[in-house]
């Protein structure tokens, strides 16, 4: 039970009012996150990472579907994560989540299509190569994920679980997309395990600790 009246509470809030900077527009924040991801990719390439792949022409369709799927997951999930931090943008969250889910389905379908009609032996999937691609995808996804998380903390979201999960999925999908575009491996099972599923794995494993960290940062802010 509050001992002050609501009108007194309003006067108290108005008395202690400090100027605030409005949160950046969602489109600008999304563009910044994607640009940051691309900067990380170019930086990685300049530091000796692999360039764009010259792949097997027969596999361009499943390969392209996987790549398009990852790009859709990246843009959709990062957009939804940013929108989830702003009250009243539920429609944008739904749109972003739908795009991300569609992208995931497209990516998985592309990978499975390649697996079913592969002209490379699937048994050649090497765990060490897969882990290297997953690690690269995670590394390249760090910058856009952190930018989306910074937006969430600035928005002072009380329950950052959904936003964090989407930021992780989107950021890592951007990194995995860059890995997919440069990975010399022609095995569709490798694409599926080490590229298309990396955002999902990152989301499942890292959401809880990152969300707890963001909630603490929000309380401290």
């Amino acid at each position, binding site marked *: 039970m509050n001992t002050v009246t609501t009108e007194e509470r309003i006067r108290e809030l108005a008395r202690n009012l400090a100027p605030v900077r*409005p949160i950046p527009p969602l489109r600008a924040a999304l563009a910044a996150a994607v640009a940051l991801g691309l900067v990380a990719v170019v930086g990685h390439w300049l530091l000796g990472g692999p360039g764009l792949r010259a792949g097997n022409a027969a596999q361009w369709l499943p390969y392209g579907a996987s790549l398009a799927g990852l790009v859709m997951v990246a843009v959709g999930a990062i957009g939804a994560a940013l929108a989830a931090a*702003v009250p*009243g943008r539920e429609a944008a969250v739904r749109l972003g989540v739908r795009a991300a889910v569609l992208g995931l389905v497209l990516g998985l379908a592309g990978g499975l299509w390649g697996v079913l009609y592969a002209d490379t032996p699937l048994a050649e999937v090497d765990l060490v190569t897969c882990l290297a691609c997953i690690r690269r995808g995670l590394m390249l996804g760090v910058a856009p994920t952190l930018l989306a998380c910074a937006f969430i903390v600035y928005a*002072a979201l009380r329950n950052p679980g959904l936003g964090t999960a989407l930021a992780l999925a989107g950021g890592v999908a951007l990194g995995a997309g860059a890995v997919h575009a440069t990975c010399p491996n022609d095995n569709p099972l490798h694409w599926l395990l080490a590229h298309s599923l990396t955002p999902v794995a990152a989301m499942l494993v890292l959401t809880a600790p990152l969300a707890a960290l963001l909630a603490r940062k929000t309380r401290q802010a």
Partner: protein
Amino acid sequence: MIAAQAGDGRVYEKLLLELLPYVRQQVAFRVREEAEREDVVQNVLVSLHRARHTYRPERPFVPWLRAVVRNASIDWLRARGRRLRHELSRDVGEMAEPSYEPLLPREERLSSELEGALASLPPNQREAVELLHVEELSVAEAAERVGVSPGALKVRAHRGYQALRALLMRPDL
């Protein structure tokens, strides 16, 4: 709202006072217990204050406001649910082992002190404590008498116990 974001307290106060009927209406739609609605309204206003930087001037104001009110009301209802569960489990523990035993050495002074402390409680907390411990009604009977839910009555009584404890444990007594 744009002026409020720039730090104009006078405009902000006017805005919040103008929004108050709308906030009360929205809260009344979600919170059944009349006695607790004003608490929720204040909670919503504080949430609105904390989220004021998330409003973009080029976006419509009402959907933003509606979302803040809805989120704050839901947060409050969830927090109340957690609090009630916690208090219920604690009250069961207290029934087995009364926590007011340490006050017994001062029992000669307790009656007048207790009366004074009870008188200083807010009316609804005092009523809840008296119904449960003076008239010795059950929670359900007391809640029915007051016209609130058993949960709301338990919250009032619990807050009353806390206030009484703080008053009776003052070093000057």
